[in-house]
């Protein structure tokens, strides 16, 4: 395993109304989590097309956690649209030999501190195990 593997950046797409304040809540509680995580604020992750995710992996992002509002999404219909899109991304990832564990769709609320940390740690383990994005295809 690549010694630097766990340092491959993890991108977190966090919704403005739920998981981004949720990440701030983790900060307010001074709870630690791995520092290779980069949180990007978005109205809803449903705005990102499939290509965005694949490009991220191609650029070297080790894992992406989509932290949506789930069924609490203020945009009625956005979450089902996002879930369908993620299915399509998984199919494309498989075609490209990318381990689909590198992308995870979650729902994190404004005070879901434990869930936030659990998801980040899980993804960090996955990225540590898999190493550089695309390396799993080369190894296969």
């Amino acid at each position, binding site marked *: 395993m690549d010694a*630097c593997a766990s*340092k*491959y*950046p993890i*991108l977190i797409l966090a919704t403005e*109304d739920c998981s981004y*304040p949720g*990440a*701030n809540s*983790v*900060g*307010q509680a*001074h*709870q*630690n*989590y791995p*520092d*290779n995580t*980069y*949180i*990007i*604020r*978005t*109205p*809803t992750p*449903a*705005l*990102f*097309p*499939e290509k*965005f995710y694949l*490009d*991220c992996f191609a*650029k*070297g*992002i080790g894992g992406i956690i989509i932290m949506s509002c789930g*069924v*609490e*999404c*203020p*945009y*009625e*219909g*956005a979450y089902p*649209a996002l879930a369908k*899109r993620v299915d399509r991304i998984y199919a494309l990832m498989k075609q490209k030999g990318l381990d689909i564990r590198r992308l995870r769709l979650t729902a994190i609320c*404004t005070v879901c501190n434990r869930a936030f940390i659990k998801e980040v740690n899980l993804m960090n383990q996955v990225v540590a195990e898999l190493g*550089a994005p695309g390396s799993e295809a080369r190894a296969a």
Partner: protein
Amino acid sequence: MSKLNNCQEQPKIGVYVCHCGGNISDHVDVAKVVEQAGGLDNVTVARDNSFMCSDPGQELIIEDIKSGKVNRIVVASCAPALHESTFRGAIARAGMNPYLYEHANIREQVSWVHHGPGATDKATALVAAAVGKAGELEALEPIRVEAEAHATVLGGGVAGMSAARDLAAQGLKVALVEKSPFLGGQVAQLDKTFPSNEAAGELLSALAAQVLADQRITVYTCAELSEYSGYVGSFKLKIRRTPPSGEDLERLALAKDAAPGEFVPFVGVAAWPVPYEAEEVALVSGAIVLATGFEHYTPPMGEYGYGQMPEVITLPELIRLMADESATGEQLVVNGKPVGSLALIHCVGSRQIPGVHQPGPDGKLNQHCSRVCCTATLQAACELREKFPETNVFELYRDIRTYGRGHEEYYLNAGRSGVIFARFEPEAPPVVTQGGEDSALTVTVLDKLLAGEELAIGVDLVVLAVGMEPRDNQSLVEKMKLPVGADRFLLEVHPKLRPVELPAAGIYLAGACQAPMDTSEAANAAGAAAAKAGAILSAGFVELDPFVAEVDESKCVGSGACVQACLADEAIEMIDTQVGKRARVNPALCMGCGVCVAACEQGAIELSGWTLGQYEAMVDAIVAQALPQGA
């Protein structure tokens, strides 16, 4: 608003890193972050300050803008929810477009969660990402739409009437739309309200008198929203009034002699006349307040014997029995039978647990706490003990949640007045059986307070403290595309930051349509909703955030994919142009979710302020900073 359109120039980005006292600089090497930021492309100024949000901190930004050193701003500090608007305000004061701004969150998401060199490296990467986005920013202008000085309030309970009164007090015309022939909603089903013990009838009469006397408020009873379109400032609504039927006819019979504005106990405030034939009224409203209220949980047949044993009733039914003027004496009398003892069972239809409780007809459980039933039950227990001292009262509860001001007094008073408490586990609820030694029923409960000892309590009446459920608003939800939470109540944008707003601008929540709340809280929420609606309508126009979809017609091929994907009716339409059909966004209707962006294969539609190009620039910057050397 006229601001310098600085985005026409080559980006000159100013980066300002905050120490936040020591909140950031105790864990992040701010000097190093500033040094690294100064070396990034397009960065012309990189500074730090103990408190960027302070006046001297803001002055740094203002001076750099005015002297022409910068035309885009990045501030790295606390969470954007705290000071994004502060810095946008400073930028605007300097004469620059406030949307040429990006925020890097290096306190909540860096210094408070990471320590050592990793914290500094991450802060550097987040600043680089913000700089990457800032380089792609364009000047935006708020969306300005004309606003009708008229609001529509749906629901004529306490929340709806309060909202209508408060809106009218701001000089707005108001349509108050109530489904039934009466005003007052669920409060009309009460005798006294807590914590003041004020008579519900007096409270409603006073409120309804203000509403009915105000010339600016038009009350439509027996009315429902039948058509909905438009956007903030100009919602086009149709209100359909229909002659009363079913239960409403029974209630009308009880109130047949009531004068307009008169309160009829357990019915409501008469708001005559009722329509004799169906009619439709067209309205144009600048804002809408939803105050459609709640319903009481109805126990299914057999839950604690409800529906099978006539001695098992609900708390609203008990309140009505106690309010009967003839109900006096040493003991409560129900159906001609004296009640020597009664048991009040808490959490019926609230805090339901999967695998323990049976779902309702819709397959859902009420997992929420209804919040008000503990105090309401204790209030009833205190009144029972006071009014009928020879009636023994038992309270069987899971937890007592008397959370509000003055509510705990009911708990203390209940204990002092001889109410006996037994605490049960949800997995082992009380069992109600017919017959007892000297009683109509026996309630068996494993009392946690007595280390799980089984108590068999002989009672003549069992009262179920039923919870609050969302009203069936399906038609409204579908018509207006309202967000609904997992608990089936209407869902606000953010419980703390935007607690009475919906994502669609100009639509607000008031009262228990949003969540279980008591009368005071419903009135508070109504006041907040009215203030929000009034604030946007009073100017005659509405300025909306410019973060809405925008079509690049040079890329659009007219596929209509964005229209298909759009979550808001009519926010995107296909229009005929000289080169064929092209998509066009109505900014006032766009919710800014961006679902259309992902749907367009041509990349012809973007969300202003959140474009894919900006996100890609952020990712590029993160990768450049964070990827291991040689990876």
